[in-house]
């Protein structure tokens, strides 16, 4: 179900009424499971079975692992961990990467003159919505049980509620079991304060999505529909900046609605964004962008790849930023080498997680490259001595990084990036993109700087009740005008 729809608002109100009417905690958990499956089925009901299968299997595996640990038998818990990983990653690879693997395989065979096999995969595969998110959630659960981070949940429905909890089901934040399951055991009372805080958060989310992201999307779609050969360097930058803001408003808007919806019910979901474009370095960016994924990657990919042992999980906070900052401090060459390998491998995989295409992998490696560059050039000094310049440089790095992410192919990416390398392409008279789009990009940058730099002014102004009323009223007006279920959230496809 799309958040940006009347259907969701109707669904939420109905669900809240039923949820708070139920007095028994267990019944509330059963209800969350049922409502979440209904929520998912509004997209395609048959695909809810894949999610259920993944949940059942992981519950079984985690139970077996826990039992082996408790009884201290000779059986090895790794068998069940492997089953869980094999099935979950199998589902993810099967649904998401089959075409990609097949295309690359046939291209590889063509090198040896084997052209007889069909050029495209002969069967049609539909990518189940949110599969990348819920499989990561179930994988993290089984891994944490295996690592003995916490005990396995013995009640299947509490586990199912954790996997399927609808506010975060299709696009995160990717939760850890110990962050949410204990909250299911609390009997939350309906509180007006929660309604207001959650409602306000949802309003901000709706505004970001239906007013800002969807409006910017029209310009972005138009610019990317122009042949990249004809774009000037400035056009490419405008395209990159506009898409950077579109994807931020789109995804942060989704997260706001998720966090707000859960808050009204009394649940706290961790933050997923924290002013990512106001970061002074790529490392800091990864502390503030898609924090839950970044933290997941840190705990289950980067730390093992860099040869470290996870001592304490920070859950979905902190992202990748902190750990990569400390990694280069080691004097040992081998450790440094392994850290660099882990860095590039992690971002390569994270890129592919976002989409089955080399352009996504390139996006990941691009970020790894800049993190590595900041590491070896000691970017910390640059950040502390020239904070404003560092912010500007990092903003540009992040925005240019979105080009492979949005471009249709590696070919288009290379064309667009090469435009930026030729000084002659910066001629302002060569532009193909309209002045309105240039103005929009400039407006967004200025608005971001103002809202970030003068937060203290806003905090004072927002204390003025009439001003708050004016701002909220205008936001409600815009959301009501622009609300329509036509535009999907970008992150749904991941």
């Amino acid at each position: 179900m799309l958040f940006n729809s009347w259907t969701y608002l109707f669904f939420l109100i109905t669900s809240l009424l039923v949820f708070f009417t139920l007095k028994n905690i267990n019944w509330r958990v059963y209800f969350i499971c049922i409502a979440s499956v209904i929520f998912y089925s509004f997209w395609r009901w048959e695909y809810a079975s894949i999610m259920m299968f993944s949940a059942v299997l992981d519950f079984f595996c985690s139970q077996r692992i826990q039992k082996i640990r408790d009884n201290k038998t000779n059986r090895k818990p790794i068998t069940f961990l492997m089953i869980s990983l094999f099935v979950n990653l199998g589902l993810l690879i099967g649904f998401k990467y089959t075409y990609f693997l097949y295309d690359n395989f046939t291209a590889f065979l063509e090198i040896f003159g084997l052209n007889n096999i069909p050029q495209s995969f002969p069967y049609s595969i539909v990518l189940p919505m949110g599969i990348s998110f819920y499989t990561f959630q179930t994988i993290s659960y089984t891994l944490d049980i295996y690592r003995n981070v916490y005990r396995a949940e013995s009640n299947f429905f509490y586990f199912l509620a954790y996997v399927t909890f609808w506010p975060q089901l299709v696009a995160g934040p990717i939760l850890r079991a110990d962050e949410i399951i204990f909250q299911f055991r609390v009997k939350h009372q309906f509180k007006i304060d929660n309604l207001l805080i959650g409602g306000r958060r949802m309003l901000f989310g709706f505004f970001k999505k239906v007013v800002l992201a969807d409006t910017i999307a029209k310009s972005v779609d138009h610019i990317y529909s122009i042949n990249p050969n004809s774009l000037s360097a400035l056009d490419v930058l405008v395209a990159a900046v506009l898409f950077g803001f579109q994807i931020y408003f789109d995804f942060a808007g989704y997260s706001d609605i998720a966090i707000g919806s859960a808050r009204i019910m009394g649940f706290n979901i961790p933050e997923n964004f924290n002013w990512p474009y106001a970061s002074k370095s790529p490392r800091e960016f990864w502390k503030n962008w898609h924090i839950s994924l970044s933290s997941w990657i840190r705990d289950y990919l980067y730390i093992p790849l860099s040869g470290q042992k996870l001592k304490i999980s920070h859950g979905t906070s902190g992202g990748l930023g902190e750990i990569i900052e400390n990694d280069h401090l080691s004097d040992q060459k081998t450790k440094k080498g392994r850290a660099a390998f882990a860095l590039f491998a992690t971002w390569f995989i994270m890129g592919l997680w976002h989409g089955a295409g080399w352009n996504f992998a390139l996006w990941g490696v691009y970020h790894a490259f800049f993190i590595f560059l900041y590491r070896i050039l000691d970017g910390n000094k640059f950040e502390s001595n020239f904070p404003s310049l560092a912010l500007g440089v990092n903003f540009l790095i992040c925005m240019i990084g979105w080009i492979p992410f949005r471009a249709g192919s590696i070919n288009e990416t290379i064309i667009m990036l090469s435009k930026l390398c030729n000084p002659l392409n910066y001629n302002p008279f060569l532009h193909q993109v309209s002045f309105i789009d240039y103005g929009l990009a400039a407006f967004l940058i200025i608005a971001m700087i103002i809202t970030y730099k003068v937060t203290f002014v806003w905090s004072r102004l927002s204390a003025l009740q009439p001003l708050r009323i004016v701002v909220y009223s205008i936001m409600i007006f815009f959301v009501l005008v622009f609300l329509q279920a036509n535009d999907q959230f970008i992150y749904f496809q991941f």
Partner: protein
Amino acid sequence: MKYFTSLASLIIGLLLFFTANWAFKDFNPSELGLGLNTTSHVAKTKGIVKSARIGDLDSVLLSIKKVQRNSPKHQLAVWIGNSQLHAINQYKHNDLLAVQYSQQMLEELNSNISLFQFSSPHLNIIEEQIYMNTLRVESIKPDYLILPITFRSFHFIKIREELKKLAGYKEITKSIANSRVADLFFLEESNDKRGKLLSKDSTWQDRSEEYLNSLMERNIPFYKYKDNTKSYIKFLPTLAIHEMTDKSRDPQVSGNREIIEINMLSLTEIIQFAKSNNIEILMYQVPHPQDDQYFFYNREAYKDFFTSIEKIASRSDNVHYIKLESIIPNRLWGINNDGFKDMYHFQSEGHKILGDTIAQVLHDLEKNVAYAF
């Protein structure tokens, strides 16, 4: 008092929403050329005009085949172009499109020519070449091809998704295999979109959303004018620029030599194809308002461009090139109450001028009379 801010905001927000919907209930900027009335008019011409939706293509092809079958002596003229052909500004009841006026006039002149139109918004020459190949695959050989030449359309080479669906027809991909357009077409196709989510068609979400919207439209005053308010808000930046400069701008045509050359090549291929199939091409420079206030292209580039087109046309004896850039008076272009000017589409009277002109030239060609413009 603690909850006053939220409650007041909600009430004021709702009031603003309904007041705006009421205020803009008659606002319909899309009636500039491609509004609801125009669209429904075009829909009624099914079988003669194909516009915008690929689904209409079949009905036009069937109509052509029917005419060919029933009246084998009839000559066939196909008019391929962009939205200028199917958009009517300030649409009034009984208004007609250029193609319809043309057909009327041809009948008055006792001509044997039957006219059909393929048009899509922003159609570029490469897409027109794909349309041509669609006719070829369907074994339809027109006697005349009417080709409007638009300065703007030669600055794009993208093939829209809608047309890419034609790639599903093996004959079409085969038919363009040796042309310049093939590189672009197949390159585009290799950008695989498989594995993405299925379209939301026929999901519970769609059905419930449709139901809830219609429920609110029926029961909540002014809710149904929500789209007008949205259109107004979206038009504001354009209107503001227009107000400030009193000049419309369309900077997306500053151009790239390479793109223009590819399109020129595509045009040459269309002409060669027409020649080898004994098709006469009537190529015309599209009408465009000439006043400074309306004219936003670089005049020099504009002039150079049409000089090149004229040269291409003069190289082939099956091409008849006419300049129609000034035939539509300023008053017949779209200008709405807000002063928003539409430089691409004209009113029905403009369609009549264009339609009659084309009909006259076609008739002259049919009678082998030398034409002069």
